[in-house]
């Protein structure tokens, strides 16, 4: 339990500009609590539910190991220390507002961090795309779905909920039909 708390605190404190990149690195590659496919599956559920998706993810991982207490422990690890740090930072910045030089430095540093954060997310997504090669729908269909979701949001400015409902719903229905077809054609033997 303590390890869980520490793991999520450390993870959250390294997550500048979003925690997903660090979560993938820590949970899948360093601690090996999840494999890449499990991570994406959990993230998919976390994304559909209301609430911040990394917080939902931490709940699910904690729940898996230690039940509801684990879930709360993981979530607390994710939130408490970063929240304290951020409030301290906000307070410090309001004090530093008196010094214009410091402000320029801070603004520059924040800009640099923002650029790195964007790159981290994109790099992580490229990694997360790897398990899609063994996906039930097939690699080209997955690429198409991902590209379509990206275009709908970036180009046509669809709200995320609409994309999830329409495109996600469609993909789920197709997967359902496909899985049922396969289950019917090869009754014994569980598929992955």
């Amino acid at each position, binding site marked *: 339990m303590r390890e869980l708390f520490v793991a999520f605190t450390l993870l959250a404190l390294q997550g500048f*500009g979003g925690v997903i990149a660090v979560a993938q690195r820590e949970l899948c590659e360093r601690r090996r609590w999840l494999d890449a496919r499990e991570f994406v599956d959990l993230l998919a559920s976390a994304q559909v539910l209301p609430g911040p998706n990394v917080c939902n993810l931490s709940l699910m991982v904690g729940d898996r190991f230690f039940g509801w207490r684990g879930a709360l422990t993981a979530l607390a690890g994710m939130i408490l220390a970063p929240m304290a740090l951020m409030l301290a930072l906000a307070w410090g910045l309001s004090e530093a507002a008196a010094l214009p030089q410091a402000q320029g430095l801070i603004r520059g*540093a924040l800009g640099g961090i923002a650029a790195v954060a964007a*790159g981290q*997310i*994109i790099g992580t997504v490229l990694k997360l795309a790897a398990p899609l090669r063994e996906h039930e729908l097939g690699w080209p269909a997955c690429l198409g779905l991902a590209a379509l979701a990206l275009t709908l949001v970036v180009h046509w400015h669809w709200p995320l909920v609409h994309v*999830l409902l329409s495109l996600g719903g469609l993909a789920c229905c197709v997967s359902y039909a496909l899985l049922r077809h396969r289950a019917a054609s090869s009754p014994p033997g569980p598929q992955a």
Partner: protein
Amino acid sequence: MSVAVWSWTPEVWWTLFGHFLALSLMSIGGAITLVPDMHRRLVQDGALLSDADFTGAIALAQAAPGPNVLFVALMGWYAGGMGGALVSMVGIMLPSTTLALAVSRWVSVRRHWLGVRAFQAGMTPVTVGLLLATGWHLMPPLGGQPRAWGLAVAVALLVWQTRVRLIWLVLAGAALGALGIV
């Protein structure tokens, strides 16, 4: 921007708590999707915090470590000090957390049901696309800040292909930014 840290303002806290409690279950895709709604409730109608504090809270939470939802705590902080930060966080987290836990348990018991597997299989590629869109939105503009754009692309390649510690990348970005290089 000056905040009375230990201000005792229970009526402001109740208002904040109520707003965030109501917003929580709508926050599909993260609390950041509710920013327009929050702006209407807290800045326009409620006058609980100023426009500058509102956007400042979001920018700071994006750059600081931790989940981005902490911008809610910052808004609470600007509106009602320490107590405001705490009640806002509890308000935004409580309903969604309860629901997420209940649903994920329901799902994990039925992990082998066809419907559950189909749901996860169908949502996964869409999730990847949506995450990519998040990264895309955060990218600095190629035209306006070509060097920052280059930095982001280099980071993406490093994260994808190597196992360099992410914190070093963040520190490098902060140093380059502070020196005015990107």
